[in-house]
């Protein structure tokens, strides 16, 4: 469990994190989403105890990170931004060092070591110095370091940054597999990651919490939510008739590929009426799609402050 209560951090006059209150429960993958410089890393550094909050508190598994820092860090696995590691150490030495620091007993430790190495597929690079590893491998070593003590709470700062699509997929599967009994907080600015991983999203910008919702709830805030889109050449008359349907709020035509998107009035379902109308007009429609909503659009609206808040 991770809880923060009005967590605030100032650098001089700049408020990097502004009264941030979030809560992540076991079984949850909470995505901390925001543009670069939004305060994601600063917030995580405070939760990990690397930075002291200017005001407010953070707790990991009930341990206040300022009052019981060691107990809080014991419960936490943390991948710092950029997955730092001691360059001159081999992967094996590095992981063993982390385990010693975490006081893992030798017999239990050996099993954990082998388990983690297998999970992150590090067998082939165990004897390579970390300096010689590719970016993707370094990230995997960083992940291994974060989970080697089987922590109840996991905090990963941009875990898939710099990975290729296959590696991203592998890391996501790993996180997914670990999510069941654990509390996981990941920061990202990749919207696909939110879809693939998170069951809850916190959006922050300029240090402030702007939204706390499930990905589906966020999609509902999109004006594309419930919209119907299709491609049909020569549908000029049909477009006019669609516009006159009582449930329809508006129609847009993509100037590039001519795809037509029909927007519903708030709360209305328009797939059926649109389909019926197209059939009546005898139009050839190869494919018709009901949109779930576009996260990127919602993200943009929320983080640039274009008043999306009112539509929720």
């Amino acid at each position, binding site marked *: 469990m991770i809880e923060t209560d009005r967590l605030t951090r100032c650098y001089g006059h700049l408020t990097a994190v502004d009264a941030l209150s979030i809560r992540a429960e076991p079984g949850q993958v909470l995505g901390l989403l925001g543009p670069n410089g939004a305060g994601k890393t600063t917030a995580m550094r405070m939760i990990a105890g690397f930075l*002291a909050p200017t005001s407010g508190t953070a707790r990991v598994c009930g341990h206040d990170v300022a009052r019981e820092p060691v107990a809080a*860090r014991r419960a*936490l696995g943390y991948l710092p931004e950029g997955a730092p590691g001691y360059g001159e150490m081999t992967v094996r030495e590095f992981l063993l060092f982390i385990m010693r620091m975490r006081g893992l007993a030798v017999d239990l430790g050996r099993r954990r070591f082998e388990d983690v190495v297998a999970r992150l597929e590090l067998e082939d690079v165990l004897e390579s110095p970390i300096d010689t590893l590719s970016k993707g491998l370094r990230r995997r070593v960083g992940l291994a370091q974060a989970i080697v003590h089987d922590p109840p709470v996991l905090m990963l700062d941009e875990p898939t940054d710099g990975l290729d699509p296959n590696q991203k997929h592998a890391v996501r599967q790993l996180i997914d597999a670990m999510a069941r009994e654990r509390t996981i907080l990941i920061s990202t600015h990749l919207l696909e990651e939110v879809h693939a991983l998170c069951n809850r999203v916190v959006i922050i910008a300029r240090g402030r919490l702007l939204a706390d919702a499930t990905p589906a709830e966020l999609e509902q805030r999109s004006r594309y939510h419930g919209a119907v889109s299709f491609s049909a050449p020569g549908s000029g008359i049909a477009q006019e008739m669609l516009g006159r349907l009582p449930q329809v709020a508006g129609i847009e035509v993509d100037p590039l590929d001519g795809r037509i998107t029909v927007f519903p009035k708030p709360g209305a379902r328009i797939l059926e009426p649109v389909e019926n109308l197209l059939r009546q007009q005898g139009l050839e429609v190869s494919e018709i799609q009901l949109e779930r909503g576009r996260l990127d659009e919602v993200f943009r609206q929320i983080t640039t402050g274009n008043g999306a808040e009112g539509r929720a």
Partner: protein
Amino acid sequence: MTPVMAIARRELRSYFVTPMAYVFLVIFLVLAGILTFYAGDFYERGVADLQPFFAMHPWLYLILAPAVSMRMWAEEAKGGTLELLLTLPVNLHEAMLGKFLAAWLFLGLALVLTFPLWLTVNYLGSPDNGVILAGYLGSWLMAGAFLAIGACLSALTQSQVVAFILTMMVCVLLILAGQPQVLDFFHGALPRKLVSGVAQLSMLRHFEAIARGVLDVRDLVYFLLTILAWLLAGILVLDLKRVR
């Protein structure tokens, strides 16, 4: 294994997997030899002891101890591993102690490796080996004091060069604090009591007392307190960096 030992072990290993340890040891031993024989008139004195050897140590450490201590925290801050280290379940004082012990043990090893000189004087004559042992102890304590200063100043900055220069400045001040020229300067400006206080800070005085074979508790306490005070200051610096 405790975090202190885990950190000390990691630090020591990192000295030896990089060329750092070997370069340092070679330079230390070569300089110690050259200074003893040429600058210290080892033979010309006609006395079988290691006084000329130990007399050079403050100046040797002045250059070499900051070279060992400069990377202690500055390198971690620069490479981002500081965040990794300080978010592990370890207290600041444990981390500081582990790093300091590694550096101190390393300089201890360098001292041990000067044993051929000890064999030489024993071959040439019959020196007072108790005095020599005291000399080694004093030298190691002084090395610890230099390293503790370096540990604190290394925590201040991300730049190893800055850490090196700052440490050298502070060390040179502490070495020279008891010299007549420095004390004369203070005589005009400070009351007599403070001047003798400045003289008491002199690393050279306390070291020379021990190296003469006089193990006075006050000299030992001086070095241990110096080490402790600078390590505490370093811990404070690290703690303040989290708030700043």
